[in-house]
């Protein structure tokens, strides 16, 4: 990935034309290449209406976060005719490809591990430009779970992304030239950024990673045009803030709570929803209290960064049950009552429905074998004290530290009234060990090992559909391999998700019947598929590229996939008529 971009070469080649090139530059948009449309700047109203846009304008497609595309050309009847429209070709980086491609018109923007950005023609796959960010060595010091970058956000003429060394960079979407580049934290002391930013009302909103290093989590807002810093909201409460008394003296400073997955937004109430991650150190006996606002859903005013309300999923967490899975906005009916809800399949093994206007729990239903949470009392999960590790006390509990579901985007289809949830079936052993904080070193205080789930022998993964009106499972596809990739729902009734063995699968959203299995895409899929239309034709796109958290931390359970082929490749599918 050190090649000069095609576009740079194109510029160099045309520079020799002298006056002619100057005239051309005046009459054409700067990057116009053969067959490439003029770029449509992304306005606030386009982002507000992203659910009906032909492209895929942001990480979870639209502000609701449902990963639901309204396209109907690909159906249960014709999905078996999917074939490859184009691919990126193999990209030789041996790390996990977790990017969600972003599409605006016939421009597609992708990121790779180690923070490279590439623009393609979304119809032909012609490469428009490539920008190779240089990550300094110090940044890799505090990357627990691979060198991921999950994608760009669009605003105006800019494609904006975060980096492992905590910069936010805005590129000219037509040329790949840097427009602004702002550092929001130092590298090497605990922080890193892997999530795609979200653009709301002209602001770039992005959250930090680093919960394994005692980094105090924060969400940062920047001016989308200039990169100027606007507000910064920490996710652990200081003593003078509400919730500050839920920490022992000073512990909030190294208390984690990394908001490391892209949030969602409700334009009706002008509220951002962002999840906060696990507390630090992992060993809870070192920080008695609820440890607000770790493992919580945060409702934030995007104008000021002020916290409107919070809902804590797991209080005083000691199992690494981050609360960062995408808060998906959907309306639902429960026990005869209508709600404007948020649904979230949590690491702690419960599927939550929360009233997004009040922050009150509607229901929480267990979706995976769970011994860490005893049940829900007064709207809150109750932890099982018998399986909390302590110094020299080893416990065994489920789900594992990777959760019943990890970061992989789930999807919601309003027509089937179901959520589609990639699920991990694993347990763990954990033992408390002494730890003291040192900037840049892991801050855990526990050793931990993934173990098979005795309740699901031979099954590490599943893909399940959950009825939004009951929180109960409708169908489930079980696999020996972990389910380790994101979900896409489409109005055509087809749901997509990829496997660690490198196949993209298509399911009937209603019944779970497998409708189609792609050929081997060369490497395992951990990313989420997307769908878009250009010139009235529907496409489905997904990265292959095995890596991410599973191969690093799964221990013996990872053995069957230890030698799985690496390297990324973007595949774009179409239905052949």
């Amino acid at each position, binding site marked *: 990935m050190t090649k000069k971009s095609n576009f740079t070469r194109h510029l160099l080649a045309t520079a020799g034309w002298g006056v002619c090139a100057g005239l051309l530059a005046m009459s054409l948009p700067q990057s116009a290449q053969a067959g490439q449309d003029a770029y449509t700047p992304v306005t606030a109203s386009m982002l507000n209406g992203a659910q009906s846009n032909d492209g895929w304008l942001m990480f979870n497609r639209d502000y609701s976060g449902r990963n639901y595309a309204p396209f109907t050309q690909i159906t249960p009847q014709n999905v078996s005719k999917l074939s490859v429209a184009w691919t990126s070709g193999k990209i030789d980086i*041996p*790390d996990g490809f977790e990017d969600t491609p972003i599409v605006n018109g016939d421009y597609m923007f992708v990121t790779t591990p180690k923070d490279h950005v590439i623009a393609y023609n979304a119809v032909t796959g012609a490469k428009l430009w490539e920008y190779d960010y240089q990550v*300094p*060595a*110090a940044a*890799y*010091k*505090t*990357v627990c779970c*691979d060198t991921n970058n999950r994608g760009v956000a669009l605003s105006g003429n800019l494609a904006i992304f975060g980096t492992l060394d905590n910069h936010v960079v805005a590129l000219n979407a037509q040329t790949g030239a840097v427009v602004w580049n702002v550092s929001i934290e130092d590298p*090497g002391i605990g922080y890193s950024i892997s999530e795609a930013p979200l653009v709301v009302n002209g602001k770039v909103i992005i959250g930090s990673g680093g919960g394994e290093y005692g980094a105090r989590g924060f969400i940062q807002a920047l001016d989308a045009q200039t990169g100027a810093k606007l507000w910064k909201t920490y996710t652990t409460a200081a003593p003078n803030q509400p919730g500050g008394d839920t920490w022992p003296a000073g512990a909030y400073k190294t208390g984690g709570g990394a908001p490391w997955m892209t949030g969602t937004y409700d334009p009706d109430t002008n509220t951002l929803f962002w999840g906060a991650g696990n507390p630090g150190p992992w060993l809870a006996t070192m920080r008695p209290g609820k440890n607000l606002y770790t493992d919580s859903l945060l409702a934030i005013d995007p104008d000021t960064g002020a916290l409107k309300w919070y809902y804590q999923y797991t209080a005083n967490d000691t199992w690494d049950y981050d609360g960062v899975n995408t808060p998906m906005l959907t309306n639902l009916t429960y026990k005869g009552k209508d709600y404007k809800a948020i649904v979230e399949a949590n690491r702690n093994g419960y599927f939550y429905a929360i009233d997004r206007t009040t922050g009150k729990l509607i229901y929480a239903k267990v979706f995976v074998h769970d011994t860490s949470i005893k049940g829900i009392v007064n709207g809150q999960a109750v932890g099982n004290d018998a399986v909390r590790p302590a110094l020299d006390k080893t416990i065994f509990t489920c789900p594992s530290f990777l959760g019943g579901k990890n970061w992989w985007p789930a999807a919601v289809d309003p027509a089937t009234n179901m959520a589609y949830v990639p699920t991990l079936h694993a347990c763990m052993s954990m033992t408390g*060990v*002494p*730890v*003291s904080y*040192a*900037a*840049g*070193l*892991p801050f*855990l205080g526990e*050793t*931990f*090992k*993934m173990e098979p789930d005795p309740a699901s022998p031979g099954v590490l993964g599943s893909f399940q559909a959950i009825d939004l009106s009951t929180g109960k499972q409708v169908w489930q596809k079980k696999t020996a391999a972990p389910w380790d990739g994101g979900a896409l729902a489409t109005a055509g009734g087809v749901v997509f998700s990829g496997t660690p063995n490198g196949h993209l699968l298509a399911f009937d959203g209603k019944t779970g019947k497998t409708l189609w299995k792609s050929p081997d895409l060369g490497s395992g899929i951990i990313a989420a598929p997307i769908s878009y239309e250009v010139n009235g034709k529907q496409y489905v796109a997904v990265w292959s590229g095995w*890596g991410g958290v599973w*191969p*690093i*931390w*799964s*221990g*013996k359970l*990872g053995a069957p996939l230890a030698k799985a082929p690496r390297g990324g490749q973007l595949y774009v599918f179409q239905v052949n008529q």
Partner: protein
Amino acid sequence: MALILSAAGAAAAAPPALYTAAQSASGATVFAQNCAMCHGADLKGGAGPSLVGQSFASAANKYTIGAIFSEIAEQMPAGQPGSLTHDQYTAALAYILSKNGYPAGSTALDYNASLGSSVPLVSQVK
């Protein structure tokens, strides 16, 4: 006075001999078999961070042998913590020290003493 000062300066510059040549030699094998797949055969990093040079342990980091060895002995190899013997863990540390410019000596690294050691660990590799 000047003599004492420069002697102190020299002492700070020269890292102590903390392990034996036999330990680092067997550590090379331990590392190749249990660590290199994530940290790189050259220790320069991969899925796991670099274990050599200033991006691993600079003077500003103020790391100790105890902090780094605790991470190794309690957490590594990632996903299979505690799966090696005490001798293998100390050998791996000896190998990492050797690659960071620490000399071999006549005293062997001891497992328990290393866990609690407050001796600074500053890579000599620029």
